[in-house]
């Protein structure tokens, strides 16, 4: 798997991305100071080939922005992004283009991510056409290969179809095929199954698992902790733009240390009615990322907060009760 001794494929260090909040005409005229949505405020992680990292958190935590920043679909404001050794955080677009082939994004909505006017063949061949790969016959063969790799076999059955003829699961596979056709090294999957029926999800997740086993690095964005626990190698839990806990997937789920992670895990509904868990329902909602609380960003809602939590912004450290070496949590009390 990742035992080839190479360094990680993707290294993100201190990533910062902010969006300006519109002040409107009145605000500008009045000279109101500009406010920022601190979507990502210092995120660091590593991803090796053949590894799946799940970025988990609620809406507004910055997981999607992190993924988009890594792919340079959104311009980061700070930090380093090293892809296979090259820092791509500030690379000019022209030099970035050849590297884009090696990182692909799979979107959440299979019903919207395919152009309804394109046949499957055209959608899957498009990346090859954009990057000027091979003659047309070659592209056709590559597209068929990619479709079969994505589980749509025999490919001939699908090449000439329109998206509206396909089910949600099939459309998502077409989207996956379209991202595989350039032979990428990194796949970013943004909630790849959340819009699919339950009976179809396992198939897609198994496909991603299979791709991982073939050596792809996969960054999966999800809000579903159960899926992350089952398929990811490592989990990073995000809150208000920071990673608050990270480590091996099973270690996080069985032995969570950060109070936010523990609260999240406690409210995930269990299918077995006999599995009674005392839910730690946090009051209120995630605060506005425009005004990040002082000190530890979680302290206003934290059931374990003490006076120091208002002043100290904790770094990720290994908790005392953690089993694994790589398990980290950003909390001064663990």
């Amino acid at each position, binding site marked *: 798997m990742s035992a080839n001794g190479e360094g990680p494929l993707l290294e993100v260090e201190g990533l910062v991305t902010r969006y300006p909040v519109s002040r409107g005409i009145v605000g500008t005229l009045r000279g109101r100071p500009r406010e920022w949505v601190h979507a990502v405020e210092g995120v660091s992680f590593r991803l090796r080939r053949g590894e799946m990292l799940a970025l988990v958190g609620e809406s507004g935590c910055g997981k999607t922005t992190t993924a988009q920043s890594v792919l340079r679909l959104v311009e980061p404001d700070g930090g380093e992004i090293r892809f296979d050794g090259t820092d791509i955080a500030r690379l000019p677009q022209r030099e970035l*283009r050849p590297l884009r082939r090696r990182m692909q994004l799979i*979107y959440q909505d299979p019903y919207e991510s395919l152009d309804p006017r394109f046949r499957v063949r055209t959608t899957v061949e498009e990346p090859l056409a954009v990057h000027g790969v091979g003659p047309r016959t070659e592209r056709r063969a590559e597209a068929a290969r990619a479709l079969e*790799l994505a589980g749509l076999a025999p490919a001939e059955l699908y090449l000439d179809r329109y998206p*509206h003829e396909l089910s949600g699961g099939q459309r998502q596979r077409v989207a996956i095929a379209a991202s595989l056709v350039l032979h990428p090294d990194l796949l970013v999957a943004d909630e790849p199954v959340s819009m699919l029926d339950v009976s179809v999800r396992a198939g897609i997740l198994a496909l991603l698992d299979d791709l991982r086993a073939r050596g792809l690095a996969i960054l999966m964005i999800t809000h579903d902790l159960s899926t992350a626990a089952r398929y990811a190698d490592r989990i990073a839990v995000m809150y208000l733009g920071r990673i608050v806990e990270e480590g091996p997937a099973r270690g996080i789920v069985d032995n969570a240390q950060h109070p936010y992670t523990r609260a999240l895990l406690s409210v995930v509904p269990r299918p077995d009615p006999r599995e009674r868990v005392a839910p730690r329902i946090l009051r209120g909602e995630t605060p506005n990322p425009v005004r990040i609380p002082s000190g530890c960003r979680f302290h206003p809602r934290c059931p374990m907060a003490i006076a120091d939590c208002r002043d100290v912004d904790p770094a990720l450290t290994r908790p005392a009760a953690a089993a694994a070496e790589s398990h980290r949590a950003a909390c001064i009390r663990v």
Partner: protein
Amino acid sequence: MTTVPAPELLTREPDDFEGPRRRRHVVWSVIRTQPQAAIGALVLLAVVVVAVLAPWIAPYGEREKVGDVFEPPSSEHWLGLDDAGIDMLTLMLHGARVSLVVGFAAALVTMLIGGMIGLLAGYFGGKTDVVLMRLTDYFLVIPDIPLMLVAAAVWGRSLTNIILIIGVIYWTTTARVVRAQVKSVRERVYVKRARSLGAGHTRVLVRHVLPQVAPLLVAITVLSVAVAIFAETAIAFLGLGDPTLTSWGKLIENAFSRSAISVDAWWAVVPPGLAVVVVVLACTMLGRALEDSLNPRLRVGHLSVRHFRLRGAGGGEAR
């Protein structure tokens, strides 16, 4: 590398796919299913055919004097004669050609100008959008008739000039509608995906955005034809049209300036007026029907007053 077919495919019949095999051609399906659109399209087609065949089916010559001034309709001259003794029916047929040519050509100009501006403003947003929309606003507030008067006076009254003037005045609606549609299409996931692949703007615009906007553009252009024909009629009626060409507007202008009304020569005034009304109506019916089914903001199906029906207890036990 061995591949396993996806589980959800394992028990599917090859022809068991959802939805029709062919991609729906929107414009054609609207014409097929909505009577209003069909009637409009049919009438328009009939007028176009008549206009094209005019030189061959016209009973007399366009400048051939065949009788007295303002002779009433008779079995030889179904629509009587005009102020120069020329057969009205012949003039009507030839007039159709000019009116329609101006109408379609000017509509094409509005489609090109308005479409281009709407496309660029909607796609690029930001400063481009602001600048282009300001431009649109300026053109929007200019009163049409006075501008046509000035333009005709300054640049002359040729057919080309008329077409250009109409096109340049009336592109603003097209631009706005196209811009709104482009803005919404641009946010769709498949467009973002194409951009994130590294596709250039041209490719995205031509292959992804334009096809989505095209049907609505067709609808708006059909409506523009109606506007253009009406505008041409107005221009000709004001005496600003091309003096060498006969159009319906010119016929009405002739009739008025030669006092057809005072001699009760209705056949010199009513037929061209009616013809304009019929063509404008046909275009409007077709254009509106297309626009209603294409413009998502105009959906009102949920306001229907009809309700669900009841079936007898024994109905359809298809088990």
